[in-house]
């Protein structure tokens, strides 16, 4: 397709963090071709972390979530349009307005969406929290009156929503199937601190607990939920945060390899197809240090992967991405940071730092060779750098 006079064209599907970041990075890497960024949401690209935090509590205006990166022309941002099919052999995408668009490079940054519980279909009362519209809806509800919120799932989103709703004096019950909070990434010591933060701040935390029956009043107000611990709750609103799944259904008939996301190599290139890349929550990215494909669902990896794809397309950096997984969460005024890839088999040890850090506590997670493979820092962000160095070194020695 690239002949003399032909200007290269990169189409990016998904106008959120990874998509915009990729577009902006392409220019930074010196790519001069046309960039088309298309997304099915109607808002200008925004970031999600503030949605469950400052936007929900009202501490920040909704505009705070808008991303600020600018992309130099030739650049087209097409909002409210969805890609519905991919013909990789023809290098063409079909869109939901029945039009089509051709590309030289295609970047998939179409992210992920909340997993649903069959017993709780989405309604006025049941919210699967992901988008700016969801945040505006919940924020309006939480601020107009005080009510009773049930949060299902004590992961990142559930815990943050619980914390933000408590800040608005809502009565909050947080249920999770696990016996410990975030047991997949936290050991017992860290779990108990996070659990304690919830309880100290008035969250009614119910662990090893699930929903056995739900009578949902679709217009709100009088919903009643029975829990597996035998209790019954009357609630005004239910937020569910039980994980996400990659938005790959529309790619089912393409030649791409899909397995918990779009399978890509350590530079973001899709397996066995030329000129198709993926980054962010939709990408199952080959991680050299761990020797396998991993799909991260965090801000940092979406940013790093999008930048890596841009460098791959521009041809400016073909080294594999070797990032240390990183995520953070804000709950009840605490900043919790997660580094590395944890595993329940690792031994948890409290981390001591040379200087006296009066607040907070941190834990390292050690494999059976005594190597620190992951860590969680609770209100000790000043030590992030040194912990990162330690884990990076132990990954190099794998």
């Amino acid at each position, binding site marked *: 397709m690239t002949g003399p006079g032909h200007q290269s064209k990169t189409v990016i599907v998904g106008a959120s*963090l990874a998509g*915009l*970041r990729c577009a902006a990075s392409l220019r930074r890497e010196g790519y001069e071709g046309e960039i088309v960024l298309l997304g099915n949401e109607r808002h200008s690209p925004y*970031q999600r*972390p*503030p949605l469950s*935090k*400052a936007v929900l509590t009202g*501490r*920040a*205006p909704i*505009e*705070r979530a808008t*991303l*600020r*990166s600018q992309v130099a022309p030739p650049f087209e941002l097409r909002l409210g349009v969805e890609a519905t099919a991919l013909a990789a052999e023809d290098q063409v995408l079909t869109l939901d307005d029945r039009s089509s668009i051709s590309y030289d490079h295609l970047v998939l940054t179409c992210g992920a969406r909340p997993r649903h519980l069959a017993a709780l279909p989405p309604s006025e009362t049941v919210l699967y929290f992901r988008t700016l519209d969801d945040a505006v809806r919940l924020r309006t509800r939480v601020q107009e009156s005080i009510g009773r919120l049930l949060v299902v799932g004590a992961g990142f989103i559930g815990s943050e929503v619980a914390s933000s709703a408590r800040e608005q004096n809502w009565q909050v019950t947080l249920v999770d199937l696990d016996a410990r909070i975030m047991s997949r990434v936290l050991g017992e010591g860290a779990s108990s601190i996070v659990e304690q933060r919830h309880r100290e701040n008035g969250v009614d935390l119910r662990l090893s607990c699930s929903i056995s029956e739900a009578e949902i009043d679709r217009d709100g107000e009088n919903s009643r939920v029975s829990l597996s611990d035998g209790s019954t709750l009357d609630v005004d609103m239910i937020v569910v945060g039980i994980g996400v799944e990659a938005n790959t259904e529309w790619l089912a008939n393409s030649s791409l390899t899909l397995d918990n996301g779009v399978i890509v190599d350590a530079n973001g290139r899709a397996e066995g197809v030329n000129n198709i890349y993926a980054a962010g929550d939709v990408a199952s990215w080959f991680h050299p240090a761990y020797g396998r494909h991993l799909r991260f669902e965090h*801000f*940092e990896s979406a*940013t790093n992967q999008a930048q890596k794809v841009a460098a791959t397309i521009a041809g400016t950096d073909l080294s594999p991405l070797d990032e240390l997984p990183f995520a*953070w969460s*804000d709950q009840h005024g605490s*900043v919790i*940071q997660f580094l590395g890839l944890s595993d329940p088999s690792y031994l948890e040890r409290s981390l001591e730092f040379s200087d006296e850090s009066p607040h907070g506590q941190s834990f390292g997670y050690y494999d059976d060779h005594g190597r620190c493979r992951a860590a969680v820092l609770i209100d000790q*962000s*000043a030590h*992030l*750098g040194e912990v990162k160095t330690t884990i990076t070194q132990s990954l190099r020695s794998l």
Partner: protein
Amino acid sequence: MKIEVDFDRCQSNALCMQSAPSVFEVRDDGFLYILQDAPGEELRQSVEEAVANCPTQAISIQD
């Protein structure tokens, strides 16, 4: 010393402001403002502390 903030990484949690209030300010509009992007050397230590404290690694010192 030249400071750069990646605003799309910044989460406005104001931890940098605690380290270097004469350089960083998170205002009521929820945005971070850089009060001086080339502060003097006497501020290096507090700016370095802000860089280390930023939970999303949004701040960098260019020289």
